[in-house]
């Protein structure tokens, strides 16, 4: 996979997922559904069609099966700043929004999915998280420890990036990342004063003097 040249602000190591937008992803042969696959979603026969939804679903199923002909289907997403992001279907499906769009075949006629609320830089970051978290690691201490240290490094970013991750993961519905980002923000603001909170979140104080006095009186114990 060639490194992308279009998004200048993102470091190269975060571009692992992104193909050059000029490359056409050609599907050489129709994906084969392995009847021995243990994936539950392959219980019923799924017709292999040409629509994006069918191809992605078939690719997702064949990926979990043990066929050698499984093709890794890529998805093309259009970010809010007009750049195209290409990502593996399995990685993108960690986002419940994208998963639902694919399953409901909302892509319409074109192969490109519109993500009007998230920038390309944020998208690539989010998909980097998704790719790392593709393995479940349930019960395996080594994997969960590795994921935990990845998460700690991943979320140690400046406030602007944290905001983008927060809003992006909320819009795309990536539960693990949303939880991680919310917890990080909570840890950052835990010890601050209400004035600092207003400054950080750009909030106006909209209490009348009487209301403010009442709130302070009722919650006096919190300041002790």
């Amino acid at each position, binding site marked *: 996979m060639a490194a992308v040249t279009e998004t200048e602000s993102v470091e190269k190591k975060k571009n692992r997922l992104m193909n050059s937008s000029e490359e056409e992803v050609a599907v050489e042969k129709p994906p084969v559904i392995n009847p021995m696959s243990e994936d539950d979603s392959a219980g019923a026969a799924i017709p292999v069609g040409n629509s994006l939804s069918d191809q992605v679903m078939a690719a997702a199923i064949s990926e979990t099966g043990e066929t050698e002909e499984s093709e890794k289907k890529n998805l093309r997403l259009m970010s809010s700043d007009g750049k195209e992001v290409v990502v593996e279907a399995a990685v993108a499906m960690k986002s419940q929004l994208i998963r639902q769009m694919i399953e409901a075949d909302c892509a319409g006629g074109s192969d490109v999915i519109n993500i009007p609320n998230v920038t390309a830089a944020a998208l690539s970051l989010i998909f980097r998280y998704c790719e790392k978290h593709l393995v479940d690691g349930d019960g395996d201490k080594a994997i969960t420890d590795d994921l935990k240290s990845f998460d700690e490094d991943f979320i140690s970013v400046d406030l602007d990036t944290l905001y983008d991750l927060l*809003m992006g993961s909320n819009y795309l519905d990536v539960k693990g990342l949303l939880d991680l980002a919310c917890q990080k923000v909570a840890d950052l603001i835990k010890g601050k004063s*209400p004035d600092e909170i207003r400054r950080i979140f*750009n*909030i106006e104080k*909209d209490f009348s003097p009487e209301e403010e006095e009442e709130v302070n009186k009722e919650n006096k114990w919190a300041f002790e």
Partner: protein
Amino acid sequence: MDSSFDLHLPEDLTREILLRLPAKSVAMFRCVSTVWLSISTDPSFILSHARRAPKFLLVRSACADKYIKLPASGLSTTVGINKRGVVRISDEAMSSCDGLVCFRGITERFALKTYYAHNPLSNLQIRMPTPGSMYTLKNSVCELYWNRRRGEYQLLNISQHCRPNYHLRAVVLGSHYSSWEIYRVPFVTDLKKQSCVLVNDCLYWTCRRSYPKSIGILVFDTLKESFSLMQLPSNGRKVSASFENYGLVEMEGELGYWTAELCKSRSVRVEIWTQMSSDEKWRNTHSLCLAGDAMSLFCFPKFLFACFEGGFVCLFKDEGLYLLHWDLKSGKYYIEKLPMTDIAVLPPARIHRETLVNPPSYLSY
């Protein structure tokens, strides 16, 4: 931090962030804006926040009017009790639910034994009406729990007023004294009253029956408001004469039953069984063998088993106060001696959280 968010956070994300803050911080941030105030005072937010709050053990200090918080790891801290005229507090009748602590005390003014419910954080406190005759209070314990059917906190008092049967008295927190409801336990048993555990809307007590001689579990379904009896796991019924070396515990949404017995090899074997629902069989899920110096601590069996933060903590007393930390996943354990000398008699410890839940305003007495 010198930078700030350029744009506003939507309300649902603000709520998610507030859910992850400690109770004190949420209360402090209520004055940030009217939106933050409405989010953080919404009753469903307060309940969700309470259920997420980290747990710790709460023990009442014997010689001072304070609580001692024992986190799963780290130093213990003290929290004051708002006495408001309460002279003596009963150690047996103490219960904690969603950050509300309920205890039985004697007031100077009335010389009556009354129940109090308060949140140690905000120190808001209410006095509860007494359930009938004084005898019922003398030999009873109280249990505070969330009644899901009614959507309110209920206070339970179980006592053996009319022998041989026990009576369960329940009242909604904050309601009138005449609204104590009485349920007669239909079985003749000898309850281990302090063993009460609430799991999935059912209350469980261990009990002994004389005829036939056996140990079982008494169940009160709070939704159906009915009693039933339950069997212990078949290989967990051999217990010694001491009443203390077995008990019930709530383990992450499942009912747990533990036993601790002295083995021939001079070690202590602790076994835990869990059961997801009363229709299921018991599964022997964990087992621990404590040898050496740990064993001597179990010779004075006054302990509480509590399960929180993914591990298992047992509080017991020999010359001091000890915590057994047992990581259930890895099976590793260590014993921590707590630097506390002001506990003369080991009071019961309770699982507690720091929350924003306040006792409901008292309607009338």
